[in-house]
């Protein structure tokens, strides 16, 4: 089946999109976390500083003697050394308190940090503040910030490991997305390759969940349907042309050869020439009709569309064919729609289509039948309906009659080139109309109906 090389994954759109999102998410993660970290650190620091100020304020209100006693008592109470204090004389000699040596500081009342050698032999980071009393003694108030530091470290640690996890999961996700997208595209492109190689019946696989690729595949599939139809039509047309033109060409050549072989009188020659010309004219007409159909199918012609009233077209067509119908004792009636049947279209082509339908109706119906051309205005748009009470078209042939050069068995003996209804079908397609043959029991009803509401 399809193997997806790892090296191909970074080129997939999904992988890149995944990476982009990972980057974006990582950035916002960093920003958010950094902000929280910064805010926490600032808060903890200011809390510490406030407690240092409180300690100093307490001592400042005490007389020097009490102060010393309090510092000593504080030392006893604070056995863990969480808030160590130290009282020094103006000259910097140690008076009382657990802090034995004065830390270097730059300013009074300003918090700073130093590594304090705790009795017991280990050092702790403490945050301290120096205060000079009125009598010159100096108090070092401090707080052990080891826990805060640890909390900070924990926070950073969480950030790093969380970020790492995010990165790994994101990357793996992107790779998985890239992989599945790549696999899906590989399936699609291998189907497309199959189609390119000539298997026109192949279709792109869909998952049925109507996601974007599915929708694209559906569009491509409907395009392939149309292509297949056209291809088979072209092939059918080629076969049919070859088949259909062989007969008149054979007749033409046979007639000419006969004239060449036998010794004929002058008027026999004239006769032969005449029938050869008739035969050739028939061929020319078939070709002209074929060209006409392909011309109609060139849908660029839609640019020439104008507002057309089907009532006018129907009336023209009915008027045009009325004498022909009368000649065969048929009644041809035209029934316009009560409201204007206005649509956007090509009057010439619609007239031709109506003529072809009437022509067929007259050609295939027995003498003295009734033919009706009706203009209808339906919610889907205006349409033409031609009804006759002739022999009708067998159910099995109702699709086939729209194929080029198709002649039903029963129509072999009538004149025509089997292009009339194909031409109507082409006009219908160009106008986005539907063309259907129905049973009028007895007879045949052909509907050329609008599919969309015209503007």
């Amino acid at each position, binding site marked *: 089946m399809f193997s997806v090389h790892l090296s191909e994954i970074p080129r997939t759109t999904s992988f890149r999109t995944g990476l982009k999102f990972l980057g974006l998410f990582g950035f916002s993660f960093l920003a958010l976390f950094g902000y929280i970290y910064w805010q926490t650190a600032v808060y903890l620091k200011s809390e510490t500083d406030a407690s240092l100020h409180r300690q100093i304020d307490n001592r400042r209100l005490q007389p020097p003697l009490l102060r010393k006693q309090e510092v000593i008592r504080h030392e006893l109470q604070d056995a863990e050394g969480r808030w160590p204090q130290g009282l020094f004389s103006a000259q910097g000699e140690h008076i009382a308190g657990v802090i034995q040596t004065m830390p270097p500081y730059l300013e009074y009342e300003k918090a700073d940090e130093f590594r304090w050698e705790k009795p017991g032999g280990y050092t702790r980071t403490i945050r301290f503040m120096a205060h000079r009393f009125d009598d010159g003694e100096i108090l070092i108030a401090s707080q052990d910030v080891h826990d805060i530091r640890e909390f900070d470290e924990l926070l950073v640690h969480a950030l790093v490991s969380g970020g790492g996890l995010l990165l790994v999961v994101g990357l793996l996700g992107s790779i998985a997305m890239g992989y599945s997208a790549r696999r899906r595209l590989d399936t699609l492109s291998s189907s497309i390759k199959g189609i390119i190689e000539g298997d026109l019946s192949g279709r792109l696989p869909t998952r049925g969940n109507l996601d974007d690729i599915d929708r694209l595949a559906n569009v491509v599939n409907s395009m392939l349907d149309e292509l297949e139809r056209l291809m088979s039509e072209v092939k059918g047309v080629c076969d049919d042309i070859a088949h259909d033109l062989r007969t008149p060409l054979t007749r033409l050549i046979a007639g000419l050869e006969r004239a060449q072989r036998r010794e004929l009188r002058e008027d026999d020659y004239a006769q032969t020439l005449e029938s050869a010309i008739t035969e050739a004219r028939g061929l020319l007409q078939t070709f002209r009709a074929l060209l006409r159909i392909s011309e109609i199918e060139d849908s660029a*012609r839609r*640019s020439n569309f104008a507002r057309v009233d089907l009532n006018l077209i129907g009336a023209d067509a009915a008027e*045009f064919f009325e*004498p022909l119908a009368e000649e065969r004792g048929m009644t041809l009636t035209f029934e316009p729609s009560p409201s204007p049947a206005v649509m956007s279209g090509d009057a010439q082509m619609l007239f031709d289509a109506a003529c072809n339908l009437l022509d067929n109706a007259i050609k295939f119906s027995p003498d003295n039948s009734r033919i009706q051309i009706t203009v209808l205005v339906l919610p889907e748009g205006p349409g033409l309906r031609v009804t006759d009470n002739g022999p009708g078209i067998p159910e099995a042939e109702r699709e086939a009659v729209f194929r080029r050069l198709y002649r039903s068995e029963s129509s072999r003996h009538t004149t025509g080139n089997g292009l009339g209804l194909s031409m109507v079908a082409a006009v219908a397609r160009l106008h986005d109309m539907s063309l259907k043959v129905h049973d009028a029991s007895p007879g045949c009803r052909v509907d050329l109906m609008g599919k969309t509401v015209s503007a």
Partner: protein
Amino acid sequence: MTHVLIVEDDATTAEEIEAALFDHGFEVTCVDNGRDGLLQAFGGGFDIIVLDRMLPGAVDGLGVLTALRAASITTPVLILSALGALDERVKGLRAGGDDYLTKPFEFVELTARLDALVRRRTAPVTQERESRLKLGNLEVDLLDRTVRRGDRTIDLVPREYALLEHLMRNPGQVVTRTMLFEAVWNYSYDERTNVIEVHIGRLRRKVDGEGEEQMIHTVRGAGYVLRAPE
């Protein structure tokens, strides 16, 4: 003699047209590209020009036509084209063409159309003749749309009247079924010549009454001619 200029790049087609027009009694000059066509046409002396739509080289059919009309040369031009689409036809006529014929065509169609163009050009342009058309004892009053043959009034439905009027405007000329279809029905393309035949048949029954000499004649494989009774 009517002098025709043919501008057609395909040698075989040109030869065939030349032969057909010569047989029809035209004097023919042939060129095979747009530049020479323009030079010849500017030189003058032609009654009509048959112009192929697609020509090799810098100047194609429409280019020739546009240049001619820009230079106020009004020689009638019939455009020949393999492009049959209605919009191509409209384009050709809009550029100043007088008629448009799609390949493949029949030569009777070409000659009939050329005759009509030449006639239109040579006919005296007078306003008063527009009120009445007369040929032999057949008379068409264009104002009250009545038709008389001798003492007999002929009742025609509008379409028959239009057919007759068109034939009356081209007396003695072959009018092909396609030309009639274009002129009378205003649609440009049709294969159903048999239907036109039926229409003409009806008209003929009314115009050429019993015991009267025939005026509407059928030209086999071509069309119809309206002639005054001898």
